[in-house]
């Protein structure tokens, strides 16, 4: 009998490819537009990546807005633990991230370094969650009979145009200080290297981070930044690309609702690029006055 056994026929197992999707409101939808693009590295396609539309952006902003108040009302200790949890999940998936960074064009050594730095950066900001307030808030010695203090509060919803060249470390370095204080985020991933962001969504999803606090879109910045800048329910935009034209467009259209615009473009491999001033950049300072009753003194504080 020359007949081959069944096992011999299927000796090469066919791998199961992942369908790359967006991350909006704690769910993994495909783009509503049905559009895809296929970035290539050295002639090899990375796969079919969602080309997010204006509608996807708006859906993501709605999800971010809905999640923001709840996230901000978590205790600082809880936010700290959740950021730490993200780092734990990332550590456990290191190999997958290294492999993806490799397929996106990094050599193994650099890919490993990028993953390690990303994990460490999350730990760094996890630690800041319950500390930055003590660094930046104040009790103000007013010259009247009032108790007066200033604290930081999150701005609200922040749109991030994440680094094109640092697809994991850049994205995490931009997002972590924003969510540390209780903001929510809609982030547009690197267009040419989107895999890290898509897999990061899976990490976030298993890290006790409430759905909608971080929303990740893939696609083309040129298509989306103007809509984001004009959107009236965004509080701030962080721009981490070397594109003066897009930055100017964002700055101009952000005047529609007096959005805060932060240009990043930092060297994220430099540890000094991570600091609590980046948390402050996405916070508002609130000052509260309250009279102090002066019993038996002349005059009241009212």
């Amino acid at each position, binding site marked *: 009998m020359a007949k081959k056994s069944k096992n011999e026929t299927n000796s090469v197992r066919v791998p199961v490819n992942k369908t790359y999707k967006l991350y909006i409101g704690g769910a993994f939808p495909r783009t509503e537009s049905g559009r895809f693009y296929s970035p290539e590295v050295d002639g090899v396609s990375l796969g079919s990546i969602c080309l997010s539309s204006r509608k996807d952006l708006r859906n993501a902003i709605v999800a971010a807005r809905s999640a923001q108040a709840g996230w901000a009302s978590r205790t600082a200790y809880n936010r700290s633990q959740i950021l730490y949890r993200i780092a734990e999940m990332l550590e456990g998936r290191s190999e997958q991230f290294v492999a993806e960074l490799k397929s996106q064009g990094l050599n193994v050594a650099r890919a490993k370094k990028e993953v390690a730095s990303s994990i460490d950066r999350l730990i760094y900001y996890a630690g800041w969650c319950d500390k930055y307030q003590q*660094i930046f808030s*104040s009790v*103000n*010695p*007013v*010259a*009247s009979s*009032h108790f*007066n203090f*200033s604290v930081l*509060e999150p*701005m609200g919803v922040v749109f991030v145009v994440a680094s094109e060249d640092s697809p994991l470390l850049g994205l995490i370095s931009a997002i972590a200080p924003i969510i540390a204080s209780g903001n929510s985020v809609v982030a547009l991933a690197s267009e040419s290297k989107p895999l890290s962001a898509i897999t990061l969504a899976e990490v976030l999803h298993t890290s006790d981070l409430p759905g909608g606090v971080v929303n990740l879109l893939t696609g083309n910045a040129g298509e989306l930044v103007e809509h984001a800048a004009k959107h009236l329910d965004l*509080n701030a935009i962080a721009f981490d690309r070397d594109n*003066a034209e897009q*930055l*100017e*467009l*964002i*700055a*101009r259209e*952000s*005047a*529609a*609702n*007096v959005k*805060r615009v932060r240009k990043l473009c930092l060297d994220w491999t430099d540890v000094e690029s991570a*600091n609590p*001033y980046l948390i402050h950049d996405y916070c*508002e*300072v*609130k*000052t*509260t*006055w*309250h*009279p102090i009753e002066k019993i038996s003194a002349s005059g009241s*504080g*009212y």
Partner: protein
Amino acid sequence: MSAVSPNEKFETSWDLAPAPESTDHVNLESHYDLFIDGEFRPSKSGNRFASVNPATEETIAEVTEADQADVNVAIKAARKAHDNVWSKMPGAERGKYIYRIARLMQEQARELAVIESMDGGKPIRESRDIDIPLAAAHFFYYAGWADKLNYAFPNRRPTSLGVAGQVIPWNFPLLMAAWKIAPALATGNTVVIKPAETTSLTALKLAEIFQQAELPPGVVNIVTGHGEVGAAIVNHSDVNKVAFTGSTDVGKIIQKSLAGSEKSLTLELGGKAANIVFEDATIDQAVEGIVNGIYFNQGHVCCAGSRLLVQESIHDELVRKLKHRMDSLIVGDPLDKNTDIGAINSSEQLNTIESYIQIGKDEGAQFYQPSCPVPEKGFWCRPSLFTDVAQSNRIGQEEIFGPVLAVQTFRTVAEAIQKANNTPYGLSAGVWTDKGSKIFNLTSQMRAGIVWANTYNKFDPTSPFGGYKESGFGREGGLHGLSAYLKV
């Protein structure tokens, strides 16, 4: 509600004898040149305009209308002063100049107060007790920061930005000049500032004080004129920092025009603050706070408590008491020490306010105004109140910048928070309740930069001021006010 008992109502039939502040000690020139590079200089064009007393409609002095050429010279002087002198001077020495300015302002406080009331129409009680002392205190506070900046920003060595272009409004002329100039100087920047066209005089008196303090030439330059002059400053390519206080509309224009530049920007814009009164508040104190919140400075206040949110259960009682209190307010001569509400700053602003009053009436809200006498000449608006205001009414949504209060009701804490935050603005808010935990809940839920609990319209140099959302960004005052003028 029970009927008004006689002793519950203010006796308003008294006529107080006039108690005008003397103007004898006021030294004003017939006209003022621009203050550039340490000296008063005529403009290139020679154009001038009148600064009018809004209480008499008489011209107090003529002020110079600067143009692009003058702005260029001023910015050049500021650049030179920054690069060669001011940014290189040790902080301790810079600080001593700023202390001098504060001391001279204190010495000349009476004259400055009278001019402020003559030029802008605000009651002398306010310019004397609030505007001028606070302006001097602001310089005194920031003077001390000049040699301590490294302590304000842990792990950083901050440096000055360069030339600051500043544009300020007419509601607190000298105080706004102090808010802008003092932190800029303490941090080693030099300044080109434009006062509002209707209220330039105290800024020009401040220029005389700079001369008396021997402030190095070019450190502060004051160019007067209308909106085009402000535009020329903020759009100048050699300005590194722009600071603007004024309307949200103009703030948006500035934000747009700076797009693509490297200039840093802070904006302090409009507001439509909710002043929230709960049924457990001490009502008489709340009434005083409401009056101070909206009728202070004729309501020309970006953080004015212009929306009163009253818990439904006390609405009738509170509105009755508020109307009685309004009946006792004295509208008239800003220089009279009895005056509660002075002159509206300009005829243009009076037109705006009157058009909003008409809009409110047309929208169906109930209007109330006491029938107090007002002078024949000048621009006046009696304290005004609208009840039954709907959330969608324009008088409840838009900044009027006058003595006009819009009253709405709420039933629950959640409804109060929702209504208070339902505005594109986010500058300030007020909360009145006797319950401490409710205060902290409310103050932390307000999307606003300043929240007054059981008080309103209090200001201090150590207290950061500035808005959320469309009320602008950046803070003025306190440690937080430093970062607007530093590369950190």
